[in-house]
């Protein structure tokens, strides 16, 4: 019952988001000065441009064009690039797995570091080592992604020459979307390591602080005192008893970040020359491919809502009772 309501609410939300997002991106494009045919055939005659506009459906009324676009969307047609005529869905298929992989690596790295650090900081709350970890986390939060990307590519890429600073090799996820790309895992990891670390650093700071504060609250609980009284070693208490009830917020935020990172990785992808969604969005803006841009925005918004739904679902599975109980103590 609960679940059905949740799904229903999310479906309505998805529909609303789709309508609003598609309409407003569409509206913005219409309001924009300039004619897309200028970009396709800059030296064409007026007659040629008029024919092309007719061809692209630009001579129709506003609502009719919008309807064409939305009904196309419903059938999975994301429109075509002006310049090359390629379907945008092809471009999405190419670039989305790249961004997804980058995001997954970033999350894994972030959690790998944040979990032990957060647990340790909470265990040693108020001591020098806790303060040191906290201060470092705080400083890391103030480093913008693009600054870190530039710093890492200068020192690790250019000075030490450990890792490449630009480029991409297909990984395990690309062939699923595009069978013609065979994975080259070694190269793939070498190219992805710096960008993934760049994205992970900010997350580490956030996750660590979240986990730490939740963990401190958990450690005040009676069942922890009980566990201590039973003589269970500290290590086991921390990892087996305290971590799980403390990790709900962390998991949820990590889940939500998945959505944020799909769009938020744009600047990192651009700096490291990774041909993911982010870079495609940047290029679309640069070359004024508005249909393409509009479709990317819609795709990301849909993904975002779907991921939020999944996180919501995960949350109800992970038993909110624990959280409520903690909130009232």
């Amino acid at each position, binding site marked *: 019952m609960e679940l059905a309501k949740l799904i229903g609410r999310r479906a309505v939300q998805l529909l609303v988001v789709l309508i609003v997002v598609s309409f407003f991106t569409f509206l913005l494009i219409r309001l924009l000065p*300039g004619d897309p045919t200028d970009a396709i055939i800059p030296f064409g005659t007026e007659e040629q441009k008029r024919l092309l506009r007719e061809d692209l459906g630009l001579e129709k009324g506003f609502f009719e064009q919008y309807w064409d676009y939305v009904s196309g969307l419903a059938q999975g047609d994301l429109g075509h690039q002006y310049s090359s005529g390629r379907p945008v869905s092809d471009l999405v298929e190419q670039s989305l797995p790249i961004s997804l992989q980058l995001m997954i690596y970033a999350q894994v790295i972030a959690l790998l570091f944040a979990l032990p650090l957060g647990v340790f900081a909470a265990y040693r709350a108020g001591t020098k080592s806790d303060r040191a970890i906290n201060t470092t986390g705080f400083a890391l939060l103030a480093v913008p992604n693009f600054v870190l990307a530039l710093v890492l590519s*200068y020192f690790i890429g250019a000075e030490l020459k450990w890792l490449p600073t630009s480029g991409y090799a297909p990984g395990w996820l690309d062939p699923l979307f595009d069978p013609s790309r065979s994975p080259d895992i070694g190269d793939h990891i070498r190219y992805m390591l710096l960008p993934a670390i760049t994205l992970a650093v900010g997350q580490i700071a956030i996750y660590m602080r979240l986990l730490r504060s939740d963990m401190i609250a958990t450690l005040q609980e009676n069942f922890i005192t009980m566990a201590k009284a039973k003589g269970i070693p500290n290590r086991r208490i921390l990892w087996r008893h305290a971590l799980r009830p403390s990790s709900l917020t962390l998991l949820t935020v990590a889940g939500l970040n998945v959505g944020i990172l799909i769009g938020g990785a744009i600047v990192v992808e651009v700096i490291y020359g990774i041909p993911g969604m982010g870079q495609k969005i940047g290029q679309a803006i640069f070359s004024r491919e508005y249909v393409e841009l509009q479709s990317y925005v819609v795709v990301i918004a849909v993904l975002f809502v779907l991921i939020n739904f999944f996180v919501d679902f995960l949350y109800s599975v992970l038993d909110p009772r624990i959280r409520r109980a903690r909130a009232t103590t």
Partner: protein
Amino acid sequence: MPERPPETALVGEIESPEEQIVEESIEGGLLGQSAEIEAGAVIAGGEGRRRKAGLGFGAWLAIGWLVFIVLIAVLAKTGILTWGDPEESFGECARKGPFADEGTADGFLLGCDSNGRDMIPRLALGAWTSLLVATGAIVVGFVIGGLLGMLAGYFGGKQSRIGGVIAGAFVGAVFGIIIGGVIFAVAIGLGDVLAGVLGGVLGAALGGFAGWRKGDLDTYLTGIFNVMLSIPAIVLALSLTAFLLGSAEEAAQGGGLPPELVLIIAIGVVSIPLVGRIARASALSWAQRDFVLAARAQGAKHARIMVRELLPNVLPAMFSISLLGIAIAIVAEGTLAILGVGVRPPTPSWGNIIALDRGNLFKSPHIVFEASLLIFLTVLALNFLGDVVRSRFDVREGGI
């Protein structure tokens, strides 16, 4: 939630977990700090016995840095103190600077960019642009988002016919224009304007009626915020900036909005739902306090309660959020500049100084790193100060 005074945090409404989480993730780093204080209070054995020290060395350092940067920016903009012309080009100095491959240039302490322009005046004027954009955007976000959020929070769970009708009519009009417009134009074949107006009026009437019946301003506003939040912030800002800037040619002819204003609008709009939700949560918790009830019992109007009772309590929390917001907006300006939209050269901003010479990173790292360092220090100072303001505000709350 951290922005909520501890003793009312649980008396108030119970939000859905998802809602809390979104706000927590927005807060990000702040959480740790406030939890630490709360945990500290628990250990000390009393709500009121919290540490009340001075601002502390770090906070003064942060204030000092911010004053310094603002001073430099203002001096550079007004031209009271000249460090040289930010647009003058010195050929012999191009790409030279500390740590650059081509060596340093005499007479230019921080070196020059790839066009041979002295970095010092450029960074100083860039500070002006970056701070102007960031502060302006946050002002936009706070005026609109804060107002909407306070309205939503104050009327949360209350009946408010007027508010409900206005919000309902607005939401109804938007959907009426979209859905009704499509139906009237495509299926019936009316003209665009007629179809849109007809759909909008019908939708507004329907929405207004629904608002009259249910009178739930909060639901509408929260819904609007949620829809806005469902587009990743940077993508929304990027699209808005790109669209508002229009074509490059038009800009060359002097048309269109000035890029600074476009950035202020774009980043400001993106911050509206974020600020709105925080303001809502804060207002919601205060609106349920007894003093609001007392004011209401004395016959105070809603507007008066909001201005005289709610606003003074919501403001301190909002102030600390605004410091964080400015930090985020500075980073946003830089991000947008690197992605190729934003302040146009020759006007420098910290972001476009980095963007212009990103290609020279390996040979002349000083150009990119000097601007990066300024961004980092300013963001750090703002974050830190925001944190301090927040925790001091919490401490004062504990005494009540």
